[in-house]
């Protein structure tokens, strides 16, 4: 799937969880992606990290290994 769209969607999720209290934002982003994104979408997102890491929210980057 096109990288700009997936990354934008993932970044939106990160933005929400960044605003939440606590210290487990990375886990929450990962949990949300796992609960609502089909595995192929998660795989695409991971694959896109190679070329487009700089477009990804830091929380998304850190959540990638968990999904």
């Amino acid at each position: 799937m096109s990288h700009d769209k997936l990354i934008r969607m993932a970044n939106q999720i990160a933005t929400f969880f960044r605003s939440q209290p606590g210290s487990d934002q990375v886990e929450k982003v990962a949990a949300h992606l796992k609960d609502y994104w089909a595995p192929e979408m998660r795989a695409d997102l991971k694959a896109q990290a190679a070329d487009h890491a700089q477009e990804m929210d830091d929380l998304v980057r850190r959540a990638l290994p968990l999904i």
Partner: protein
Amino acid sequence: MKDFIIPWGDDRDMGTPAKEGAPVTLEIDGFSVTVPEGTSVMRAAAIAGLQIPKLCASDNLEAFGSCRLCVVEIEGRRGTPASCTTPVAPGMVVRTQSEQVQRIRKGVMELYISDHPLDCLTCSANGDCELQDMAGVVGLRDQRFEAPEGGMRTHFARRDTSGEANPEYIPKDDSNPYFTYDPAKCIVCNRCVRACEEVQGTFALTIQGRGFESRVSAGGVGDDFLSSDCVSCGACVQACPTATLQEKSVIELGTPTRSVITTCAYCGVGCSFKAELNGDQLVRMVPYKNGAANRGHSCVKGRFAYGYATHSDRILKPMIRERIDQPWREVSWDEALGFAADKLRGIQAKYGRKSVGVITSSRCTNEETYLVQKLARAVFLNNNTDTCARVCHSPTGYGLGQTFGTSAGTQNFDSVGKADVVVVIGANPTDGHPVFASRLKKRLRAGAKLIVIDPRRIDLVKSAHVEAAHHLALRPGTNVAVVTAMAHVIVTEGLYDEGFIRERCDWDEFAEYAEFVSDARHSPEATEMLTGVPAEELRAAARLYATGGNGAIYYGLGVTEHSQGSTTVMGIANLAMLTGNIGRDGVGVNPLRGQNNVQGSCDMGSFPHELPGYRHVKGAEVRAIFEAAWGVEIDAEPGLRIPNMLDAAVSGRFKGLYCQGEDILQSDPDTRHVAAGLAAMDCVIVHDLFLNETANYAHVFLPGSTFLEKDGTFTNAERRINRVRKVMAPRNGYADWEITQMLANAILAAEDRPLWHYTHPARIMEEIAATTPGFAHVDYAMLEEKGSVQWPCNDANPEGSPIMHVEGFVRGKGRFIVTEYVATEERTGPRFPLLLTTGRILSQYNVGAQTRRTPNTVWHTEDVLEIHPHDAEVRGVKEGDWVKLASRSGETAMRAHLTDRVSPGVVYTTFHHPTTQANVITTDYSDWATNCPEYKVTAVQVGLSNGPTEWQEEYDALAERARRILPAAE
């Protein structure tokens, strides 16, 4: 109107409304009756089984006391009081029949009949006329008024005896497409006027003139029904005891002889109707008095707009084609299903198990939706199932699930009658949910306060006898900022309900939340620049909601269809928890669902991540239940959502789609992208009534059945499970649940797997009840007995649950969630300086596939662009001009309508007509949590144009080509 058809349950007219009060015992004609204090003598008699003659009374209207046909004798009282206006008293002794009252009643009837035409045999109300009945009941045998010289003066004769035109005569008003007003038959009982006021709340009718000259009149001088404020709800027609206000269908087809109770298939109010027929010919739909959602009221759509069911555009035979540039070929069901099954199996073999999916529809029944998601999970063996609720209320599912623990409105509709402060956010009930709006307006007229939060000045803000205390006309896209600012006021001014929060919610989460919202940057003053809402107004609204008594929130798609839709839903839930407005009558958080079965399609596991009953597919114990029931292994990973399916199609991984009752091409955002996705698929199966827009890209068309042609259940916005009953045989041959089953079986047979064997939707409901805890006690026998039931209905709530979270939240402790405002990426700028928001109007329904095929089009022939006169002026746009509407996604053209209902900087349109293609404009931005598209905010530019755009013309041509059907080979 009297009930001359054998009723289902008791729906007699009891004369005056029910009352609540201490029991009072009295004697009527020797029978002892006990009724609540305040009940009329007429109603008490009716309860005892004694019908007192009446003309001006009806039990959905307050007693009026004008006809004096209902007189009775009461021991110890002088004269003969009217029983409809006389309340009962303890020990009262009433006689409903005596020489004296009979004489009076006869006299009354004689007076009426002296000015009424006696053409009963050819009258359209013959057999269905209360005047006729009463003449019979009182024993009227002759009419003793002597005609004065020159003949009797009447208001119904066109000419007097000398041949001169009668100045009193008023011709019939035929202007409304569905009913006529024939003043010649009017007895001026006032029921229509009161129905329009008390039941509908529109105040379109008045009695003009006095005494003999008095007449019912719609609107002002020179108005007819169509040009008046009348919204064609039909309440007056139903109230009229004579043929004066009469359905045109009855005039044409005759009075019906049988009836079936069923449920409206339009909006989420879920009104119950009596479908009245002769044989299998539907004569009219009459709102059913015992319907718990509508209590005998209806709107123009459910009451009148059913003609699409027999429209000539309906496709009744299955059709296939290899490629979408070919014309359609009509084939047998076997061939069509075999073709579809081969294609889908071929795709799965070549591209993998996950390369196909389904879209269920919120228009279909629970049983149908359940089968469609089962088709994905148990036949395709993947979780690629989604529903059109994705594009409307998916944020409700997420937001309320996170905060309260369940995805549903908390109240029943009756609850609005107990509300003191009603907040309407991003919804337009008078157009979208008309019957709920009527009930709300009734409550507002009785003194409840209203707060409207909407960019547009919707009708509720100011209409007859209703005015909002506050209208917060926010900039589209700033919902979260406004809701959070309200919470700021409630917390910082100490208006929250600490007792409730301590008992019912997680206190630590509250503390974090309170700290968050107390921050000065969330104050109304700080956010005023952003939201456009004056700080003082917002503060006043927040105070009113927090302190005005029972506070109830109703919201619609103006909340959900945003990039922060889910966050706003959580913000709304926060407000209700903060103020303790949850868990009892008159309060709550209530999503107004767009389509009839949005609630049900979500309940039935249509979403790709959850099985029926909102249980995530990752739960092994939940999967085990369905694995046992279905004999397959269920995928533990979520599947694709609609936008993801389309994206995957464009990238070549998603190739086959079964789309039931849903027109994604017209209703989903960014039409070009949807079209590209559909065009990239190898097999698109459309199962619908009409060749809809999506069908332009389809390879298989399976003709669907209407709600009149099948059995099933719909679940409305108050979680009420209502029966849909088969009124006539399906014209296409099969009910939709049968078609899904045939498709499943065509695939299963080819793979040598066990087939499905449902024989009736009741069997499907048994499976739902057996697998889904909230439905455990639901079955058709129970629905037959109770009429309807609100889930959860199980061991803990055997009678169902009118109100949720009464003892505690479904998830245990209510959860406060921090709601940080994040601006949407869709921003205005020099190229696209205006914000477009979308909505719908009363007479049309969503993409209009049904309502456009009924006479409802007289109220709305095309979509228009509402623009503020200031914005219009700087662009040189005048009323009625063709304008081009452009966004970064595309452009379309429509006519402009100048109005200050929208603020400067905001434009608005509806999306009922395919030629408008309003979704060519909308973007692919979506809610962060659910991918619900951001329909409600698009940055656009508006400029003058000459007419339809090239895209519109090209599309029309393409649609025409795609709809060709080859004549059937004989």
